[in-house]
């Protein structure tokens, strides 16, 4: 297992709210991941909002949230985040 590159925690789609809760995030009425306290949308490293259904990963580096699309997965594996 490679720290930061090999998943330690895996989650299914139905578990997304529980994962987000642990990081003080939640899903707004439009299905977007937001900060619980401020209501601000959580952004990817590319500056994009994340729809909960497209949520892919969280990487250490002060909580980097990414989507689950191919480019995000590649960038994670390439250490670009």
């Amino acid at each position, binding site marked *: 297992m490679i720290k930061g590159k090999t*998943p*330690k925690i*895996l989650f*299914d789609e139905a578990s997304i709210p*529980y994962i987000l809760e*642990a990081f003080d995030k939640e899903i707004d009425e439009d299905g977007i991941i937001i900060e619980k306290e401020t209501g601000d949308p959580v952004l990817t490293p590319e500056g994009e909002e994340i729809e909960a259904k497209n949520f*892919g990963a969280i990487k250490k580096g002060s909580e980097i949230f990414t989507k689950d699309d191919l480019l995000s997965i590649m960038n994670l594996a390439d250490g670009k985040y």
Partner: protein
Amino acid sequence: MGRKKSRKKQSKEELLETFRKRYKRRDVIVSIESSQNSSLFLRQSFFSWEKKDKILIICPPILKKEYPDEYEDIMKEVITENFNDDHLIFKHSKKSILEAYSSYKLTGTSKEIIEFFSDKLHGDDVNALRMSLFLRYQSNNNKRVDILKNDIREKYGERGANIANLCSAGYFENEFKPLYNSVPRKEFEEYYEAVVEKKARALFVHAQMGVEELRREFFRLLDRAKKYRLKDFRIHGKGEVNVNTIKALFNELKEEGPHDDFEFEKNENTKIQMIEYEVKLIN
């Protein structure tokens, strides 16, 4: 494991210690499964330790039933403790792509072509190319690529999809790279745009395309090739249906007699069900 009736209920701290004993071990994965179809949910169990596979499975909805006032703290502790140890939290359904990409990276097969184009093309095209090279690798290894192709198209539209097709057919190594090294930059860029954006150089036939539509696209491509003063263009097809569609069109064109403005040559690989027609413009 984790069934209400089989043992005295552990305190929150005792339960966390039970979890820690497992996930602190090397190579143990924590799988958080809340789907109503998951085996834990169906058994109404809140955790399971799969010793052989080294997987600790936790089912939050059932944990919530068992520990309604403490489940949030328990989940937060499990997740953040593992996260803070510099690990990755990842969506289960995409794990196979991550693993496939990690294996592909180890081969180093596409490193050179990416390095070559990384400072010569627009950033989005470089990313589309990176994705396409992986897609090509997966396709060559007989893996399903429809989801990957979809991701490229969603991210970069038709331009991205065309880059994927051109990449699969070897255009970046066999045409764009040699061209870049032999003509002025401006000329390369014009040609590249004509091919990638205007699709003036190649047509990739898909299963929904019948002979009539292919014929229309063929003549559109012929006009574009004339407009951009290209010497030739290609029609590509993979798979039995697409190969037959292309063959049907070119048989028709052959029967229509010699043409003043173009001639064509076939290149077929029956082993992998692939066909390519090179159409040369005359005058």
